[in-house]
């Protein structure tokens, strides 16, 4: 395995953060990450450096340095941000709550939360009197925005940023449903809550299938997201209508219109 490593040292100055973003962006692109993941890496290093400058060194730390190391290990791309400020583990800080009202909301405090959300793994270490935050993005064989790892029974695509479509293949029955449930649950726990079930290849939905769809819909709604259906064939639609689920689920003729519905309902 070939490991490529690139290093950059910047002074602890806010105006140098853009240079850190550019450096990481270029390294991430060279590691084969798709544009969306590249942007996530830039956001992560931006937030990490901002935190060190504002809270670690304080705004007077211009003579201090921040070291940034990018490592490309083939399947993993890591960014490590190291500084000499007092020991502080940002990962122990509790996460802010995205469903807070405006009144109870502090304007700031989102940086570390964003890092945890956009990166696949984050580690903190205090060693040799230095803080190190390592942020990892997995390099997927297929671009993150197009296709995620596939199973033969169901596939996941991302028709638009932050919108994920799960397409079960075949009969949605007791055999297929646990897999579909697992795939969607993974999306929900990853914070992906705008979900489409692409029914193009679903020729039949059993009672277990209906139960699975309702349960996933409820969980998506509980997470302040939604789950909609696309491309439901007439036979399946009839079943949904008989038990009134066509009034519960939003159903769109195609994957594209379903994806567009999420965009238009913002605001």
């Amino acid at each position: 395995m070939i490991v490529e490593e690139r290093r950059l040292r910047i002074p602890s100055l806010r105006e140098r953060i853009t240079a850190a973003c550019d450096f990481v962006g270029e390294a991430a692109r060279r590691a084969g990450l798709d544009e969306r993941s590249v942007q996530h890496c830039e956001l992560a290093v931006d937030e990490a450096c901002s935190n060190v400058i504002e809270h670690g060194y304080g705004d007077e730390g211009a003579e201090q340095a921040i070291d940034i190391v990018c490592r490309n290990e083939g399947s993993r791309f890591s960014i490590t941000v190291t500084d000499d400020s007092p020991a502080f583990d940002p990962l122990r800080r509790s996460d802010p709550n995205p469903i807070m009202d405006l009144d109870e909301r502090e304007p700031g405090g989102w940086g570390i939360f964003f890092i945890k959300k956009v990166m696949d793994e984050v580690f903190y270490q205090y060693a040799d009197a230095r803080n190190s935050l390592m942020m990892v993005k997995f390099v997927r064989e297929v671009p993150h925005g197009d296709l995620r790892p596939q199973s033969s029974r169901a596939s996941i695509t991302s028709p638009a940023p932050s919108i994920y479509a799960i397409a079960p293949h075949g009969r949605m029955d007791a055999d297929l449903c646990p897999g579909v449930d697992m795939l969607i649950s993974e999306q929900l726990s990853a914070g992906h809550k705008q979900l489409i079930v692409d029914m193009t290849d679903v020729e039949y939905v059993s009672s277990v299938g209906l139960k699975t769809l309702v349960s996933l819909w409820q969980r998506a709604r509980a997470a302040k997201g939604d789950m909609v259906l696309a491309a439901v064939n007439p036979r399946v639609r009839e079943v949904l209508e008989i038990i009134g689920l066509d009034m519960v689920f939003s159903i769109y003729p195609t994957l594209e219109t379903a994806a567009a519905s999420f965009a238009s309902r913002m605001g």
Partner: protein
Amino acid sequence: MLEIRVTEQDGVTLVEVIGRVDSTNAEQLGEALITQIEAGHTQIVLDLAGVDYMSSAGLREIVSALKRAKRSVDGGDVRIAQPSYRVREVLEMAGLDTIIQIYPTQVEAVGSY
């Protein structure tokens, strides 16, 4: 470099931003918004069509301005127009899509007041 243009349209203050909003320049955005609010221009549309990147520093300024606008005597607001997918993702991560009104076009955002 951040470019900020302020125009009044149909009694609404339109703040158009072009560039990357990060911790090196987010304060400029915050100052531009606060200046308007303090001058009594509290019905604000923040047009983010020209912003391809925003870090939490930008959100912090928007939330501060939103709080200021809502507290003002005439009950103002800060509404967002046409955020890019990437900015929208950041807004959503912080749950701001539920507390800030977001419109797909500038016309709709201005017309919402």
